[in-house]
């Protein structure tokens, strides 16, 4: 029984009353995906440092765990703001917001249904991934030498399909003769956390002559980078700037500022300006989605490509290009 005594560990975020406390429920991939979920976590961390808040988080499995996890936080008197990370929370978080009108809720990637009104204590955060995916598609289209590019998706689902279709449109926009190979890691949530499968799919595409692969697959994408490293080919990251995962291999990343969106909502609550019942849209225009162009990767994107892509950005913002989503 010695370890019982010796292990009085510290509890993350002690119970000082009065401090704003946030509860966040992650998507299937969970923390450590170096991508979507980790971006949300960065938002929390930033809020802790700059706003002095406290937080706790849960990483649920698929199925019934999401509602149970949200409810667990909603039942806690010390937690006042609850986040759901991922489109899959749409139904559950709406239900919880109605059931717990005193708590504030926010959902990243919420699937907005215009025929229904949002509960007054819920903010739906929406990203225009298709705009960012179109741009990285164009980059791939301009840069490919083999005229063959690839796409690796996580779970085959309408959300990831949106990434795929708009990416394809971007590639074709830049390079109409380019061939595009498509692969999905699976059909369940596990497909977002299967680097082995990601590597296998990417190896297959690279062997077929593909030289650039865009992935939208969470942790699975780390396998795509691994394959690119082995085959000396290129990849495009997603959600966060993934350059550090494979420097010299990740040409760019399609970023969604999930961290900013999480931070912004927490700040609103802290400042007392939180207003629920609304949809917060992040697109190219507000720099809510973008592609990475920094000191680390600008040597991989030639100036002429940069200029062309920036022109496309302008056209998208002005509404001159319509991007397919399915």
């Amino acid at each position, binding site marked *: 029984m010695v370890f019982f005594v010796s292990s009085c*560990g510290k509890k993350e975020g002690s119970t000082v009353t009065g401090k704003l406390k946030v509860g966040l429920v992650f998507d299937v991939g969970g923390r450590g995906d170096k991508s979507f979920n980790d971006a949300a976590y960065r938002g929390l961390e930033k809020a802790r440092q700059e706003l002095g808040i406290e937080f706790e988080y849960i*990483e649920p499995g698929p199925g*019934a765990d999401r*509602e149970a996890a949200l409810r667990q936080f909603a039942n806690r008197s010390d937690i006042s703001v609850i986040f759901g990370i991922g489109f899959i929370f749409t*139904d559950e978080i709406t239900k919880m917001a109605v059931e717990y009108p005193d708590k504030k809720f926010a959902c990243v990637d919420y*699937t907005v249904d215009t025929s229904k009104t949002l509960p007054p204590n819920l903010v739906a955060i929406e990203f225009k991934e298709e705009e960012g995916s179109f741009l990285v598609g164009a980059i791939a289209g301009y840069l490919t030498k083999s005229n063959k590019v690839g796409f690796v998706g996580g779970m*085959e689902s309408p959300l990831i399909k949106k990434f795929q279709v708009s990416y394809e449109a971007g590639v074709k926009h830049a390079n109409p003769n380019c061939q595009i190979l498509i692969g999905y890691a699976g*059909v369940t949530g596990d497909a977002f956390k299967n680097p082995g499968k990601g590597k296998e799919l990417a190896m297959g595409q690279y062997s077929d002559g593909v030289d650039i692969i865009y992935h939208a697959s969470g942790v699975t994408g780390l396998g795509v980078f691994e394959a690119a490293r082995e085959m000396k080919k290129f990849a495009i990251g997603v959600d966060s700037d993934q350059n550090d995962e494979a420097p010299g291999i990740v040409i760019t990343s399609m970023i969604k500022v999930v961290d900013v969106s999480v931070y912004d909502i927490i700040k609103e609550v802290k400042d007392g300006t939180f207003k629920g019942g609304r949809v917060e849209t992040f697109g190219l225009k507000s720099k809510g989605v973008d592609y990475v162009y920094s000191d680390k990767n600008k040597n991989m994107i030639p100036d002429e490509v940069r200029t062309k892509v920036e022109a496309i950005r302008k056209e998208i913002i002005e509404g001159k290009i319509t991007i397919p989503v399915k």
Partner: protein
Amino acid sequence: MISVITSLLIGAIFIAAIGQNPLEVYLQLFSQTLGNTYGIGQVLFKATPLILTGLSVAIAFKAGLFNIGAEGQLNIGAFASAWVGFTFVTMPWYILIPLSILAGFIGGALWASIAGVLKAKFGSHEVINTIMLNFIALALVSYLVNNIYPVPATIHTPEISPNAWLQRFDVLTGIFKGSPFNLSFLIALAACLLMYYLLWKTPLGYQINTLGLNKGAAEYSKMNVKKLIMLSMALAGGFAGLGGLNFVNGYKHYLELGFSENAGYIGIAVALIARNNPWGIIIAAIFFGILEYGGLTINTLVPKEIITILQAIVILIMISINHFIAQSRYKKFNAGTANG
């Protein structure tokens, strides 16, 4: 009981290793799973499909077959239940509910029968076949959900008619408030009763038991072994197929991809721990329900990976200690039991 305590102690070492107080973690785990009706409801909700997949694996075991395919059978059955529910929306509840239950059973049974027929007719091994059929089933259900019956921007089927709902206990009784624990639990209990009656009280059960204990003896006594194999697999699949009712008809009222949370595979552990006894399966399933839901309740203190490790340790210890006790009893009395 010894095994539970042993696994908790070993688990405590892991929890201490990551700098948490095991007592605090266990207190939270047990108070939130068994300390209030909501927690109990959550545990029983988690246990419901595990009872059915446990039965599925157990009945195949009884016939000497390893059914690794409960996961696939569960998914196919669940889709069949959902399909009936969202297709025949105008039917009254007293027709639609039985029809949806029947569809789940038949869906699972047909799917398992593929492996059953292959085994009986060609002798191809059911372990490989059921594993492969799991992959096919998941892909098939995903295709059906994403392409044939898509609901835009979701990964689930259309909603089933309210006439196909299996009502939640919190709506019916007011207790278990907030938990999706529902009437399908009674279906799972009825399935246990059915399995008990079938295996221990009928000639067919006697034949299945004989086949499992000694295939040669079954053949020698002129039993139709091929028919028995096919029938056992179909029954196994049918039980697993009913597992989808809990989520589809009882909770979300649609089938969502990934809903099964590997219940088909956990069913193997449930059957092993219960040594294929239908009453033991209920207890083992509830135990796994505590682990599953309990894991979620302590997730704010302990990372998910540690919880998975804890669960695996518990399963390992339970199964090995169980086996050890069974063996020493066997030696002591120098006589085998049908439950081996």
